[in-house]
Structures are given as structure tokens and as C-alpha cells.
């Protein structure tokens, strides 16, 4: 199913390669957009940004959005922008294009925002610490005697505390609560089990922690809503359509969950058209 290509002595899946290519193109042309003197060049690099974003949409199984974005943005909006640039700047580059406004402060603000966002993403998806602890628990569960388990875990009390702390850092995973209770129970009865040599119970408890921990880790950062407030079923494509059909499920979602927003969007388009004509139209002034 997955194709691979060979680049520089390493095997990369085609999907990864395309992702890297498209995102590099997005970032490079984004930088070109904000750094070009000539607004025409800026508009053309915006077209490249949009087209490579379309590539990313296609990689994310959204072919309809790819087509819609390419047609609306690259086809209509960029062309209109170019049209206005040609209309307004027949004399060539103006003073406004050659100077920037507070470039240092603007860049600082941009990088602060970027740093904050990337830090948040790293916080929500970084599960390396939990992974190491879960591997340790899994390895301990496969041992035979309590002494060997202790050797793998180090100090048990400290191990459980570490798992607890790693779990507390992970957000957005509803399974976390159950696992934390399990952890507390195990920790409370661990020494008792150890005293009477309850191998099976100890092993089962560790395996349970490892298993549930893996579930928590997989759900980390997915922002899944709570079980008591499930999302609408209409937007979830049925099993036989998922991955094969995009347009029909999307239409179903639009005309069930988003029926009123669709009508509002239509009204908005109408109002915007009227507004644009009313703002630019000069016929009334001439007649007056």
C-alpha cells in the first residue's frame, strides 16, 4: 500500500516526501510574499502558497477542498488582486513598497507568536517521558519474580510517582482518570503484594498500566470531547465511505450540521457583493 522512494541513501515514504516538499514550498513562498518589494511578485508568491496548501489538503484526504481552494483563491482572489495592483500602480514601485513599518517589532511579535504556538504543540504532543516509563512497566511485567521486577523498576514508589507526574502533564485524554485511579490502587497495595509474593497480581497490574498508558498516550493532544457531549454523527463518514469518498460525506455534513451556517454564508456573499458595488460605484456621484 505504501510506496517508498530512495533519497540520498535513505528510504522515505512518498507521503512524507510530498509533505516535506509542499511545506517547504509553503514556507519559502510565504517568506517571499512578505519580503518582495514588488506587490505583483508578492501576489504571485501568494498563488504559490495557495497551490502548495492545496497539495497539503490533498495529502490530508480533502480533494474537494483542494479543488475549491485552487479555484477560489488561486483562480479568483489572486487574479482580482493582480487586477487591482495593475490598476493602482501603473507608475511602478512606490515609496510604500520600498520601506517597511517597524520591521524589528513586527518580526519580534511574529516570532513570539510562533514560539508560543510551537511550545504549546510540543507540550501537548510530547509523550517521550511517558513512553519510557510505559516501556519500563512493560519490561517489568514480563519478569518472573518480584525481585527482578524491583530491579527493572528501580524504587517502585518513585516509579509510580513518576508515571503519575508524566500523566498529569498530558492533556485532552479522557482515559487518564481511570488510569490515575488504577495507579493509586496499585501503589497502595504494592508492598502488601510484594510481602506475600503475589506474582500474578503484580504482573497484571503492571501490564494494565502499560496498556492503558498506551491508550492515553495515543489520545494525547487530540482534543477529544468528553464522552457526555458526543459530536454529531452526521459529520463522521460511514465506514465504507471513509477514505474513498469525500464530497458526499462533506455535503451531508454541510446540509445537516451546518445548514444554518450555509444559509448565512450565502447571505454574507450577497451582502458582500452589494457592498462592494455600493462602495466602488461612482455612477450616483456623477449624476448628482
Amino acid at each position: 500500500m505504501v510506496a517508498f522512494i530512495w533519497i540520498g541513501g535513505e528510504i522515505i515514504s512518498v507521503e512524507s516526501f510530498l509533505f516535506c516538499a509542499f511545506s517547504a514550498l509553503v514556507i519559502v513562498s510565504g517568506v517571499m510574499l512578505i519580503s518582495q518589494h514588488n506587490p505583483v511578485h508578492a501576489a504571485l508568491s501568494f498563488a504559490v502558497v495557495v497551490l502548495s496548501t492545496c497539495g497539503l489538503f490533498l495529502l490530508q484526504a480533502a480533494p474537494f477542498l483542494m479543488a475549491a481552494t485552487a479555484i477560489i483563491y488561486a483562480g479568483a482572489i489572486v487574479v482580482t488582486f493582480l487586477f487591482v495592483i495593475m490598476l493602482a500602480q501603473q507608475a511602478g514601485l512606490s515609496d510604500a513598497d520600498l520601506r517597511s513599518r517597524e520591521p524589528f517589532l513586527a518580526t519580534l511579535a511574529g516570532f513570539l507568536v510562533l514560539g508560543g504556538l510551537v511550545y504549546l504543540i510540543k507540550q501537548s504532543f510530547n509523550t517521550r517521558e511517558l513512553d519510557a516509563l510505559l516501556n519500563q512497566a512493560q519490561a517489568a511485567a514480563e519478569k518472573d519474580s518480584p525481585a527482578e521486577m524491583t530491579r527493572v523498576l528501580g524504587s517502585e514508589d518513585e516509579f509510580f510517582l513518576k508515571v503519575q507526574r508524566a500523566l498529569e502533564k498530558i492533556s485532552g485524554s479522557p482515559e487518564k482518570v481511570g488510569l490515575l485511579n488504577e495507579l493509586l490502587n496499585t501503589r497502595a497495595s504494592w508492598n502488601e503484594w510484594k510481602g506475600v509474593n503475589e506474582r500474578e497480581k503484580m504482573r497484571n497490574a503492571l501490564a494494565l498500566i502499560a496498556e492503558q498508558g498506551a491508550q492515553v498516550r495515543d489520545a494525547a493532544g487530540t482534543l477529544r470531547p468528553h464522552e457526555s457531549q458526543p459530536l454529531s454523527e452526521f459529520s463522521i463518514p460511514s465506514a465504507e465511505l471513509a477514505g474513498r469518498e469525500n464530497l458526499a460525506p462533506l455535503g451531508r455534513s454541510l446540509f445537516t450540521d451546518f445548514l444554518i451556517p450555509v444559509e448565512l454564508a450565502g447571505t454574507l456573499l450577497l451582502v458582500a457583493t452589494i457592498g462592494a458595488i455600493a462602495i466602488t460605484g461612482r455612477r450616483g456621484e456623477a449624476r448628482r
Partner: protein
Amino acid sequence: MIPVMSLQNYLVVGAILFALGMIGFLARRNFIVMFLSAEMMLQGVAINLVAFARHRGNLQGQAFVLFILTVAACEAAIALALILTLYRSRRSLDVSIWQDLREAGQDATVDEEPLPPPPAEPSLPKLTPAGIEPKHPEEMSHV
């Protein structure tokens, strides 16, 4: 290193696009480039929404991106109409010309950066004025 294809890669690309658009919006003076930067911020958000839609197997994210497209189209129409009107009244696309629209009680920003030097005049060939041919100095050497 083989990059892992997952949600957070797309989120980071979206964040980078958003920040780039923000820098462009804050630093550029040309109305049109400012609006292009704002549209680029919208693209960053759209990447995030589509990534979550894929990750969760739920099409609500994609539906949201369709609404973003609608709003962006309306925004472009209105913005271009406004830009044309502004351009007609002052013959320039520079935002800082419109500083008198700022909030009451705020100081006007003064440009510290000097104006760029005016473009050099194209060098035209200098022609000798027509008339009687001037006297040439006599040649000193004879062959």
C-alpha cells in the same frame, strides 16, 4: 531522519504560516500586500482544521474550511473595493497616509526610517549641439 507523518507536523506548518502572515501584516505598508498576508494567516488556520479533520475522521473541520473560503472571498471583495476608493482619493497605497483614521488620543507614528534614495535618472546619450563644427586641436604627431 525519517519524518513521522502525524498531526503535529501539520500544526507546526500552520503555525509557521500564521506567524509569517502576521509579520507581513504588521511590517508592510502596501494595502494589497497587507491583505495578502491576512489571507495567508487564514491559510494557516485552514491547514490546522483540515489536519484535525483527518486525524479525527470527522468532516466538521473541512466544513469549517469551506466557510473560511466563503468569508475570505467576501473579505477580498470588500477589501479591494475599499482599497480602490482609498487609492482614488489620495493616489497612494501607503497605509501610513491614513493615520488620521487612528483612535482618538493616540499619537501619530513618525517614520524613523529615511526615504529610499530616488531612482537614478536613466543616463541618456549626450549629443553635441548642432551648428558649426568646433575647432579641433591640431594633431601633434605625423606619420
